[in-house]
């Protein structure tokens, strides 16, 4: 199958014919715009704040609860999106909701990329050798 001959589609006509998942996504987000990748990068981690800290879960949807359950241990945004089987844009809206109500703590990725610590690189190599 060729990747070249993809026609230019109508740029703003986004509603799918078999729009089930999109409609569901729209219902979940209420049409709110995604907070964007700067806010929740693929490898940003989130961790659920215990209920005992007192935030209200009254308006939570099942997907919110699913995130809270999954993030009892630190979970990456990519992993959560995969777990929920929802597009990243939708997951970012849900995460933003949870952050605003104080239900999750966010840990942005440590920028190891530009100057990777040599000890980390060696640990990755050792880990790959050991696991193989």
């Amino acid at each position: 199958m060729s990747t070249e001959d993809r026609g230019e589609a109508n740029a703003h006509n986004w509603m799918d014919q078999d729009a089930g998942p999109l409609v569901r996504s729209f219902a979940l987000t209420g049409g709110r715009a995604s907070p964007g990748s700067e806010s929740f990068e693929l490898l940003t981690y989130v961790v659920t704040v215990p209920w005992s800290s007192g935030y209200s879960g009254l308006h939570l949807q099942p997907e919110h609860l699913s995130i809270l359950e999954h993030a009892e241990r630190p979970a990456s945004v990519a992993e959560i999106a995969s777990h929920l089987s929802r597009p990243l844009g939708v997951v970012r809206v849900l995460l933003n909701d949870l952050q605003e109500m104080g239900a999750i703590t966010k840990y942005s990725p440590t920028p190891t990329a530009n100057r990777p610590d040599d000890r980390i690189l060696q640990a990755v190599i050792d880990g790959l050798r050991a696991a193989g």
Partner: protein
Amino acid sequence: MASEQQARPVVVPTTVKILIAGGFGAGKTTMVGSVSEIMPLHTEEVLTSASMDSDDVSGVEGKTSTTIAMDFGRIYLRDDLVLYLFGTPGQDRFWFLWDELALGALGAVVLADSRRLADCFPSIDYFEQRGTPFLVAVNKFHGEEPFGVNAVRTALNLDPGVPVISCDARDSMSGREVLISLIEHVRSRVN
């Protein structure tokens, strides 16, 4: 819900990201899957100004959105150290997705199918322009390589510093060796 865990310190692991790029059908998903300890996970982005496969267009003329799947795999190297592998979307035109994937990436593997070497030019251009360290791994689709590694280097007009190795994307050991070679390469650039 999480109250029992309150006393436990939160350990957010150090996370290293490597991209697996290359042309359409070069074996990206296969490699992500063979190296990872879990089945490749899957995340997607719905494109609203989208395009689609010519196959899809026939019969569904009104369809104007598409879902771009990104495969990823995860390897826990230690409790506090995780490697994520992200396969890049095959379609070159979705560069904005590549930008997000490339953000903070340690480096990239460009998988090449030696019968269709030109397919990996866009990936190579992208990483060269971005300054992302990468190597080229020629996937042994057919056992014997029609081109040796040096011929591939010449054909792709690669900078002498860019490693070119051969691999079998289906083989976990081979995939791990590719990743190790990439990390050694990153290291040699840093020092």
